[in-house]
């Protein structure tokens, strides 16, 4: 059963069907190092999107003739689980998934120091568990975290976000309804430090002015998500540090207190 077209995507107050403002992101939850067996992994929830990313490598290329003598090969698989959509999706890779695998790979590759690991392969897997529009962007955001978590050297954390047009308004971070019934979708991936754009696609129609406005909005969205990416990495590693160091402080204070008691007695 496909979704019914809502009467309005943006109401009179300028609020969207999920209650967001025009330039507001969906709530995002990011987690790093969620899988035991992969070298690096990350999980993202962006609105109703739920996506896992896993990274293996660098490892020896198999078969050997595919290896590049001067840098690592990056392989990427974007895949939607059969239960990720409203009607069951055939688990075989579709034309769309093959294309997205390619563009995700191309958007991540400029950030990775592939030349440090000649003759090797880096595998990136993006598994969409639940989709609600904008999964390629969420997937790239999670994949960049997974690559960083795998300890692969990066120039920057790649981050992606979409903007588009719904009911004639330029909106940030489209959900499924806005993607399906809106007028345009513009996914953007970038390296936030230099502002280099590594992915730019558009379907639908935008005028020159609208395009510029949407692009700038998407870049703003990317910067917000980038801050969350850094936060997620910090949470994973700094918390361990603080907990470990605090226990020492706690133990020391207990010791001091005991000594004081002993002295009084």
């Amino acid at each position, binding site marked *: 059963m496909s979704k019914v077209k809502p009467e309005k995507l943006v109401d009179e107050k300028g609020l969207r069907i999920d209650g967001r403002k025009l330039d507001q992101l969906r709530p995002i939850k990011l987690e790093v190092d969620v899988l035991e067996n992969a070298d690096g992994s990350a999980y993202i929830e962006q609105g109703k999107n739920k996506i896992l990313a896993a990274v293996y490598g660098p490892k020896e290329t198999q078969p050997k003739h595919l290896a590049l003598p001067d840098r690592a090969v990056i392989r990427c698989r974007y895949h939607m689980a059969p239960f990720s959509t409203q009607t069951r999706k055939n688990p075989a890779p579709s034309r769309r998934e093959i294309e997205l695998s390619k563009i995700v790979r191309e958007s991540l590759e400029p950030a990775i120091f592939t030349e440090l690991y000649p003759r090797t392969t880096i595998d990136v897997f993006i598994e969409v568990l639940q989709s609600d529009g904008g999964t390629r962007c969420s997937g790239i955001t999670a994949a960049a975290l997974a690559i960083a978590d795998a*300890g692969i050297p990066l120039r*920057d954390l790649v981050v992606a976000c979409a903007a588009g047009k719904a009911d004639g308004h330029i909106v940030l971070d489209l959900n499924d309804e806005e993607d399906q019934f809106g007028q345009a979708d513009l996914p953007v991936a970038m390296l936030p430090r230099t502002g280099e754009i590594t992915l730019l696609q558009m379907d639908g129609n935008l005028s020159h002015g609208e395009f510029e406005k949407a692009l700038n909005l998407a870049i703003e969205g990317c910067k917000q998500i980038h801050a969350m990416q*850094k936060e997620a990495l910090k949470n994973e590693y700094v918390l361990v540090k603080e907990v470990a160091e605090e226990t020492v402080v706690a*133990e020391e204070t207990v010791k001091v207190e005991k000594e004081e008691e002993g002295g009084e007695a």
Partner: protein
Amino acid sequence: MTLLFEKNKFVTPGDQLAEGDFIPGNNTYRDGEKIFASRIGLANLDGKTVYVVAVKGCYVPNIGDFIIGKVIDMTTSGWIVDINSPYDAMLSVSEAVERQFNTQRDALSRIYNIGDLLMAKIIAYDRTRGPVLTTLDRGLGKITRGRVISITPTKIPRLIGKKGSMVNLLKTETNCYINVGQNGMVLISGSTPEDEDLAILAILKIEAEAHTSGLTERISALINDMKIKRGLTNVQSKTGETG
């Protein structure tokens, strides 16, 4: 010329570390006048070199490194060894036995067989060729007893400690032989399985908390705690004599 971090600050890839007259060290890169981090880790400064101690990373072979690997295949003149790195290593017969060895008359598997764990040294490696091993030096060769565990290679310096302080602490406190491979594989062999359990527990704690300060004290506290909890009296008495 500015430095943009405090010592041991947590950084993520793309974070700017310094600008101007600094040298980019491990896990950093230069873009124009600025230096950025390329891995997750803790930023540090040594003289004019800015570097990042990575929390995770794979092992890149280095000539002279002591490593522990596993034989995964045999060729007509040697073995292929998995050394927990992106590149598999080669070990030829001439680097395994000193005497003449006729590969046509004697089976290679009489020296090392598939599945054997080896202690070895890297004697050659560059970008174009895989690493080459030797097991001829003293103390190298097949591992016959003990247990091997694998930890993140970037945490090996922490496990060894300053001038071996951490690993020496483990050795004396747990009464185990501990051989630390630069590739993240660690061989532990003690007189009882309980001693080995204790050493493994401590090593895993070091791995999990490698990026924290005051680790040596915590590890020694942990070992003493566990000794009492597990009733390892023989270990206790021995360290009691030494301490």
